[in-house]
């Protein structure tokens, strides 16, 4: 062969290669265009598909899009059994082939995690079909399979079809994971919401402030644990002039414990207002709650203490609660429970524990969250509280003593989180306290209870002119009615009123623990009488009568200070 012939041969080969390249490029271009067109068609399907897929029917739109992508007239979605659900199958058309015909192939797919091709499966219309199944993988675990089927014996699924179905199936698998995660997140969010409500409930019953009464110093501290518990404390000025303090601890955590604590707290306050002794209170409440607690499996401990500030007498009844600690003349005594926790026995006869306190004597009530702190040597217990309390020194206030105990508890805990609520109340007796002109009243935040304002205000204001008395009565009533309507807005609560006077002025401090705030302008214009207004009078009357009206929002509740110049 001569050079010319060789050149001719190589020219031909080059031409063939070039032609082949052109052909391949054209095929690649066509394939790319086809894929792009298919993707353009699929994207709207994908975007319209549900974001939460749990059952096969949830991802049916995706199946349809996959079928359309590979031009398959049939499709199947198969989900393997999981949790308490059995295997699920969804087919288009419905029941196109029986699951039993596919099962052994699906079992192979599940065990290998690889696609399977199935031929000669007879469809419902007796036509032979062939299928391509692709596994749905989540964290390398087969959760199901997507199958596309043809009933055209002249057509087979191509490699491009297989790649397309594979990519589409990966997308569906992700959505299945998203559905599981979404369900888990929904459950967690619900639980968190319930715990938040329980926390708000528990916080709402804690007193916003300690009582102030001549002859007694009261200091308290309540620290909730990370998980909502059933600790609560409270106080009531009894009609006889005694100050009653109580502490409860409902066993358990979360919403049930918080709700049980609320009802017990309310019941104790209501019965204490009837001037019952601590023994009578626990006997009554235990009897009333026995059936409910028994059927609900609730257990609650409670301590009730009543102090007479005029005499220094103290009386306690303790239902299964941690022992109270009483320091008399420097000597500590432990007052243990004298009856079981509430709800254990239907009828009980608790034994009262009494003492006559001297000036400077101290009493501590606390919850087991404070005493049951684990140390290197064992439990802190009440011995820990006793060691932490400052030596008997009249210069230490109840607040300083409580803070010293809490600081010591904090050091012992060494930064570990609270596993239980910590509650402590300290009461120090101060004999010979100067008689005060301070008047105090606690009333329920209801319109009916406002009737109790009249005798209280008479006691504070007299002897003052009748007109002054009527004006002050009206002003304080209007403010309290406002608190009932706006601060509490239908929820239960109390209004705390302190009043005092000197020769020239009279003042009121009115607090609530309501969840709602006020807009309290410094100036309130009078509604125009000629327009016959049916609202807007209350706060206006308050400002007309009082010489000073100040408002501030507390961390939990509202506080009003009212002052009126008077001549006596």
């Amino acid at each position: 062969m001569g050079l010319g012939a060789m050149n001719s041969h190589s020219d031909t080969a080059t031409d063939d290669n070039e032609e082949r390249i052109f052909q391949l490029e054209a095929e690649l271009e066509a394939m790319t265009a086809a894929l792009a067109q298919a993707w353009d068609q699929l994207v709207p399907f994908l975007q319209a598909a549900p974001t939460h897929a749990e059952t096969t029917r949830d991802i049916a739109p995706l199946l349809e899009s996959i079928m359309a992508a590979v031009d398959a007239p049939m499709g199947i979605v198969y989900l393997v059994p999981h949790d308490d659900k059995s295997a699920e199958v969804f087919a288009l058309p419905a029941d196109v082939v029986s699951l039993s015909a596919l099962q052994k192939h699906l079992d192979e797919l599940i065990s290998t995690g690889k696609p399977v091709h199935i031929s000669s499966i007879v469809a419902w219309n007796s036509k032979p079909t062939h299928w391509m199944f692709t596994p749905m993988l989540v964290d390398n675990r087969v959760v199901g399979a997507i199958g596309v089927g043809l009933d055209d014996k002249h057509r087979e699924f191509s490699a491009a079809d297989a790649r397309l179905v594979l990519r589409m199936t990966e997308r569906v698998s992700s959505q299945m994971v998203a559905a599981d995660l979404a369900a888990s997140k929904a459950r967690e969010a619900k639980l968190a919401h319930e715990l938040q409500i329980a926390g708000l409930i528990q916080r709402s019953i804690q007193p916003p402030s300690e009582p102030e009464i001549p002859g007694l110093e009261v200091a308290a501290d309540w620290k909730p644990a990370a998980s909502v518990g059933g600790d609560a404390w409270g106080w009531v000025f009894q009609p006889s002039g005694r100050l009653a303090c109580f502490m409860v601890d409902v066993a358990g955590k979360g919403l049930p414990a918080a709700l049980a604590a609320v009802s017990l707290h309310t019941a104790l306050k209501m019965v204490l207002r009837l001037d019952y002794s601590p023994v009578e209170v626990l006997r009554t409440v235990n009897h009333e709650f026995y059936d409910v607690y028994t059927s609900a499996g609730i257990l609650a401990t409670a301590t009730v203490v009543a102090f007479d500030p005029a005499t220094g007498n103290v009386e306690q009844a303790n239902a299964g609660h941690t022992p109270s600690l009483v320091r008399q003349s420097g000597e500590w005594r432990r007052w243990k429970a004298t009856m079981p926790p509430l709800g254990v026995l239907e009828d009980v006869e608790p034994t009262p524990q009494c003492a006559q306190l001297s000036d400077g004597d101290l009493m501590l009530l606390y919850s087991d969250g404070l005493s049951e702190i684990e140390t290197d040597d064992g439990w802190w217990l009440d011995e820990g509280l006793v060691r932490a309390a400052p030596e008997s020194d009249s210069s230490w206030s109840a607040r300083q003593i409580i803070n010293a105990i809490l600081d010591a508890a904090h050091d012992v805990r060494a930064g570990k989180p609270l596993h239980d609520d910590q509650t402590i109340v300290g009461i120090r007796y101060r004999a010979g306290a100067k008689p005060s002109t301070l008047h105090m009243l606690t009333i329920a935040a209801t319109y009916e209870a406002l009737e109790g304002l009249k005798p209280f205000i008479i006691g504070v204001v007299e002897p003052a002119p009748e007109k002054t008395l009527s004006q002050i009565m009206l002003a304080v009533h209007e403010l309290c009615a406002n608190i009932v309507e706006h601060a509490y807005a239908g929820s239960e609560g109390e209004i705390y009123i302190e009043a005092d006077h000197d020769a020239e002025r009279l003042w009121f401090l009115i607090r609530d623990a309501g969840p709602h705030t006020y807009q309290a302008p410094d100036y309130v214009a009078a509604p125009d009488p000629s327009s016959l207004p049916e609202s807007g009078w209350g706060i206006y009357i308050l400002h007309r009568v009082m010489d000073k009206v100040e408002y501030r929002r507390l961390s939990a509740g509202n506080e009003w200070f009212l002052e009126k110049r008077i001549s006596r």
Partner: protein
Amino acid sequence: MAMGRTPMQLQIRSVDHALVLKPAGRLAADTHEQLKVAWLNDSDWKYLIVDLSETQFIDSIGLATLVSGLKTARQRGGDLLLVNTTNSIRIILDLTSMNRVFQTMPSIEEALLWVSAQ
């Protein structure tokens, strides 16, 4: 020492075109509805006469109820008269200047005479 509730006792009688109401007790946020229900349940009156001789206390809600009664009466072409206002009632009327709006009469008889003359 129990704080008993003193619900409002309400006497109602009709005289010609007037409905005479006598609330005894507190006319306040927890009791005022009784007054309103009384005049809404009767369609024959044109004038309301409210005898306050036994009303021990009235607050802004009670006052608003009286204003509501006044409006209703005027819609019927009549009026609302306050009778036997006590010192405590005059306190709230003075504070709110509503004493310029309500007609007051010293007795029921004079109120009925005034009504019959309209």
